[in-house]
């Protein structure tokens, strides 16, 4: 740790600028890194400076998304992974996303406890709540990943529940997306319905020590057999592997990591990793632009209040689609 860092150790972070906190974090002070993430998460004034500093240093980490139904064992698997990485990649980071209560905004974030004891002391674990605000998560997660990347964490594992489009998207934009399936969660039709499957670069059938695990594997295999007829495999040109694990015992964790590495090597070799990252950045810019536009649209509509076109809709004199066209034509037309 540098002298600079030592001098400011114990200093109240509230008295420091975002730049100063960033350099403290670079010096390895974890509470500074913790605070940077809070700024990003809150999208506060400091967030932009931090993102600029981070973006210039980022781009080295292998980003892994792990998603699946609640209770499928994502956190335990993630714990097994970081335990396995202790030797080779001691500076792994985990971003564990859990839902906020839509009623109170509160959340119980319990994933840390499944990872901390097995992880190396250099592993950085951050729990994140979805915080209800529309699209907020989609804006915050890439920002947090960027900061962790800039600090040299590699790999970075994002763990999200595979319900809700935003959560699925977040895991789906990783370099390597792992979808966790388990026996007893319904048949192949359910799996196709979930919409998760198209995203997977790798399937993990967890709880493989339970009855029905081989059926899940077979269903997934059948589904993948059809991928060429739907054109799904053209997205990546690769058939996702299927790995069997039992996270509680650690069985299969090494296989899982080996499959993740194979995927990383394959997309590195064929250049797809750069495409994925470019489209991830583009998506982030797009989400930011959309957030601004959405706010403007809300302003515009509340400006309109109940007069004009909106009143006509209410009085059933105009269809909503016609009103929308009228409003957009006058404003953006």
């Amino acid at each position, binding site marked *: 740790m540098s002298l600079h860092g030592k001098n400011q150790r114990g200093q109240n972070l509230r008295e420091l600028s975002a730049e100063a906190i960033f350099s403290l974090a670079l010096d390895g002070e974890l*509470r500074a890194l913790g605070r940077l993430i*809070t700024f990003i998460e809150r999208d*506060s004034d400091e967030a932009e400076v931090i993102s600029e500093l981070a973006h210039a240093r980022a781009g080295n980490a292998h980003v892994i998304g792990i998603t699946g139904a609640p209770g499928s064992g994502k956190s335990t698997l993630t714990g097994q992974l970081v335990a396995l990485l202790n030797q080779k990649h001691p500076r792994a980071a985990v971003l564990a996303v859990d839902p906020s*209560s839509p009623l109170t*905004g509160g959340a*119980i974030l319990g994933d*840390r406890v499944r990872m901390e004891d097995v992880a190396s002391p250099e592993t950085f*674990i951050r729990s994140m709540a979805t915080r209800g605000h529309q699209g907020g998560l989609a804006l915050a997660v890439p920002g947090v990943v960027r900061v962790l990347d800039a600090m040299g964490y590699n790999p970075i594992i994002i763990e999200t529940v595979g319900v809700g489009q935003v959560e699925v998207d977040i895991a789906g934009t990783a370099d390597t997306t792992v979808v966790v399936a388990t026996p007893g969660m319904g048949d192949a039709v359910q799996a196709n319905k979930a919409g998760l499957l198209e995203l997977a670069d790798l399937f993990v059938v967890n709880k493989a020590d339970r009855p029905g695990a081989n059926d899940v594997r077979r269903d997934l295999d059948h589904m993948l057999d059809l991928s060429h007829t739907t054109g799904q495999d053209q997205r990546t040109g690769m058939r996702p592997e299927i790995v069997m694990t039992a996270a509680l015992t650690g069985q299969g964790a090494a296989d899982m990591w080996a499959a993740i590495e194979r995927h990383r090597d394959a997309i590195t070799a064929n250049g797809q990793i750069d495409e994925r990252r470019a489209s991830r950045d583009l998506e982030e810019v797009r989400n930011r632009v959309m957030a601004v536009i959405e706010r403007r649209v809300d302003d515009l509509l509340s400006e309109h209040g109940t007069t004009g076109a909106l009143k006509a809709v209410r009085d059933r004199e105009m269809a909503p689609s016609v009103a929308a066209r009228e409003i957009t034509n006058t404003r953006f037309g």
Partner: protein
Amino acid sequence: MSEPQLRVVLAKLGFDGHDRGIKIVARILRDAGMEVIYLGLRQSYLNVVNAVEQEDADAVGLSMHNASHMTLAPKMVEALAAAGLDVPVIVGGIVPDEDVTELLEKGVAVVLGPGASAEQVAISVRDAVAAKA
């Protein structure tokens, strides 16, 4: 922007298996709109310090039911201070009245007994955080 979301680390230190209370407290704080980083049973000071740093938590809640509070709670306060973390430590559980003053003198922010209502628990956490700001 609305008020920043409070983040609270909840843990039981050492060998203390009574985790019914801490689970209820987790729920109470969640329902009060806070984000609870739940560590649960058999935690060390280091685990808690790590969690507060990495999670940028605003407070630590310790649930104590095995008469270890006079030893462990002040040590937790020291461990946080040594790491440069200025966050309040709130103790909940079974603490005899005569111990409370000494715990407060040793830096514990609040001691909550079994009679505390959900509202009191939430308010105590908010007040303890506000006092540090």
